[in-house]
């Protein structure tokens, strides 16, 4: 599927592509067009597609070129690669934080998943509790985590 078909299918309006106005040169527009076609071939959702198109616009304006196609065979891989290019400082900080948080002494059996939610990064913690004793152990573990985080 090319970009025009994807845009029709997702009922995109001109207003959705406001960010494109910043592309000023034919070269920038041509590169955007190629990248948009590549994106459409992966058939992302409306909001995911727009978010990547805006990131691509920024990256073109930042001077990136053909290297923007790296990882473009899979939507998730591509999106992740583009995020690292568009948000290099935050990506680096998040990686360090993720490593630090994952190494903490979380309660036994808990599931820890690093996440960025808007302007905050942290972990989502899933716990299973079946008794008061479980809860006591978990709280003790969490206190150790708190001590480690505060260091």
């Amino acid at each position: 599927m090319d970009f025009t078909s994807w845009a029709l299918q997702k009922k995109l309006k001109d207003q959705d592509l406001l960010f494109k106005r910043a592309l000023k040169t034919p070269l920038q527009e041509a590169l955007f067009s190629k990248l948009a076609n590549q994106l459409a071939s992966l058939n992302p959702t409306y909001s995911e597609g727009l978010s990547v198109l805006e990131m691509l616009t920024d990256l073109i304006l930042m001077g990136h070129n053909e290297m923007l196609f790296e990882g473009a065979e899979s939507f998730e891989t591509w999106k992740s690669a583009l995020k690292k290019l568009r948000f290099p400082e935050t990506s680096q900080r998040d990686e360090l934080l993720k490593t630090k948080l994952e190494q903490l002494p979380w309660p036994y059996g808990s599931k820890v998943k690093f996440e960025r939610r808007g302007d905050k990064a942290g972990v989502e913690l899933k716990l299973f509790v079946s008794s008061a004793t479980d809860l006591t152990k978990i709280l003790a573990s969490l206190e150790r985590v708190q001590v480690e985080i505060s260091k």
Partner: protein
Amino acid sequence: MIMLPTFDRIFIDKTSEDSEVALRVRSLYPAEIITSSDERQPNANENFSLDKKGPMTADEFNLSKRTLLLTTFKGQFFKRCPGATQKKALTCCNYHVLNLGSQCNMNCSYCYLQSYLNSRTTKIFTNIDQALAELKEMADQHPDQPFRVGTGEVIDSLSLDLLTLYSRRLIEFINQYPKWILEFKTKSNNVEQFLDLKTAGNTVVSWSINPPYIIDREEHGTARFYERIAAAIKCRDQGYKIAFHIDPMIWHPEWKENYSYLAEELNRQFNPSDVHIISLGSLRFQPEQRHMMRERFGLDSLVTRAEMFSSEGNKLRYDAALRSEMFQFMIKKMKALDSAWNIFLCMETPETWIQSFDKVPMQVPELRSLFKPLPQIRDFQS
């Protein structure tokens, strides 16, 4: 010699024709760029309408900076700061605003007016008497409450003051209410026009300031760093209180060096007793503003390149941990230079306050009076 703001066109509404500001503007600008107009009867030959409202294109926004409209304001002049409307999300410092115009003749890349304004002109409201009457009504009701009134919310307080001389009217007014505080907020160095007036000590002339590195890159058409410092020294020497708003702090690879330089320069040029307050804020803007900024400044700006994320209150901001790091760095730096510096955060969440100060403002003795709830202003429309 007066350096006048540049305008391509000036329109004077019929309701403003006889105002002092209109007379002054006519005496300062060439007649060929001045047109008498009536907002209700736009000239069909104009290629834009003074009445046109709604989101602007980048070109329309640029043009609005070069088109001046003198008109009267029909609504309520005196309002609470927009931060107060987000009390659940933000910690607010009881600032009140008196809007005597809108738009700005300077051109900062991050300016929030890019997503706020919908009028195609820079407006100066000529009915200052009405604004002062509103202020008087409130001040007479609460003369002993420490209301802070700022004029720099949607227009720079002093960059167009050479045309209006409103600073003089406002200083003379506020001198009658010593408990009230009037704050001019500016990025200009226009202060000579009021320095001959005596102050009752309750007029604060404040500068939004950043390191020279940021001013040179992001604050186009503003007074340069040392011009602002020189203007602040003149005000201090005449007995005016001064303040600095280090806002927005803008991340860049050398931010620590550049903000250290700013702190050291402020500490070198001023004593904490000279400076009413230093406020800190970090880069933030409404999500829809990013399109206008991208179109107007490309991606060469530290602002458009910034790594921003949605936050409480729906604005885009830096990562919360980075914001705290920047605030803590600046607070630590200033306090290390002199522990007497009085610093607070502007439009920030309680979490960021706690991470930066270990306290919310009501727990900081020197800030308590700023954040103490005040009587609500009544709606003059009702």
